[in-house]
């Protein structure tokens, strides 16, 4: 199923995106499934990483598996400082990846949580150099404001630590960013199931980035389609404005009059 209307586009940098699902290319058992995953997901944006070539064991890079019409979003994974992130971003652009960059600055190897200060510095440097900067971040309001001031094109808060599939553990904080930050909020990391992505979209997230949950699922192409459906459903629900929650008592859906057996004397 693809969206039949294109009046709800996601504007980031120079792009107007119809799909609000971004996908990744890491952790696939066989990279040859990536074209089928990309097609099933409907995604228009796909992440890649930059690494040293293994000199003793040269393999063709990831590019051969990525459909040509997709927009590449290289990440700066491996960077521990803003300077390292900027170096990776410039290499990726020189390699023909385009101007989009996902900033990822991490020095904690156990929890893989992003360093807000270094991320903001890298964002500022690269935005000034004309990059469309999408920083991965812990959903903290002050860090998010720093990223806005630094010139980010969107902010990408984590739902849970990378690769954990635990869902929206940071739900409350992401809700605050959606309310307060005048940039697209793209939930990245921790989304393990389509229902998690759907929930993020219902809350008003602009998009979701999903890698592990698709790549290590039993059937990546089917799971990619499920995530595509979930993101569309969540977005549609957000636009339709979900009904209010009622606490403390029930409210019947059916009329409370005209029951059979009622006596009117």
């Amino acid at each position: 199923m693809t969206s039949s209307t294109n009046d709800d586009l996601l504007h980031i940098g120079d792009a107007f995106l119809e799909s609000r699902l971004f996908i990744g290319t890491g952790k696939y058992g066989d990279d040859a499934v990536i074209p089928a995953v990309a097609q099933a997901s409907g995604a228009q944006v796909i992440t890649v990483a930059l690494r040293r070539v293994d000199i003793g064991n040269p393999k063709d890079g990831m590019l051969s598996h990525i459909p040509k019409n997709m927009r590449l979003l290289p990440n700066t994974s491996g960077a521990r400082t803003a300077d390292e992130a900027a170096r990776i971003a410039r290499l990726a652009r020189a390699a023909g990846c385009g101007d989009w960059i996902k900033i990822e600055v991490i020095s904690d190897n156990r929890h893989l949580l992003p360093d807000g200060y270094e991320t903001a510095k890298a964002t500022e440097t690269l935005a000034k150099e004309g990059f469309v900067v999408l920083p991965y971040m812990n959903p903290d309001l002050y860090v998010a404001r720093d990223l806005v001031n630094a010139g980010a094109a969107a902010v990408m808060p984590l739902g849970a630590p990378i690769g954990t599939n635990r869902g929206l553990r940071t739900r409350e904080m992401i809700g605050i960013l959606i309310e307060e930050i005048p940039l697209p909020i793209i939930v990245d990391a921790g989304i393990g199931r389509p229902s998690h992505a759907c929930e993020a979209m219902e809350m008003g997230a602009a998009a979701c980035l999903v890698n592990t949950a698709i790549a290590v699922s039993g059937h990546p192409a089917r799971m990619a389609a499920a995530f595509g459906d979930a993101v569309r459903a969540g977005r549609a629900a957000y636009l339709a404005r979900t009904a209010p929650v009622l606490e403390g008592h029930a409210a019947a859906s059916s009329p409370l009059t005209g029951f059979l057996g009622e006596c009117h004397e």
Partner: protein
Amino acid sequence: MEIYLNGKTTAVTPECSLFGLITELGLNPDTVIAELNRDIVPSSQFETTILKPGDALELLHLVGGG
């Protein structure tokens, strides 16, 4: 002569071009990203870039990532 290739001391043919080294290593010059002494080398300059002893060369490529 020796250069530092991806962090390791590596013997290469004297006056070897970057293009020559990349192809000799069995790599695809269309997908390899090169950084020589911290400067990005565009692929259009691979053939005219001649390596010198002690050069620090990084050869990279795109891999899967999230």
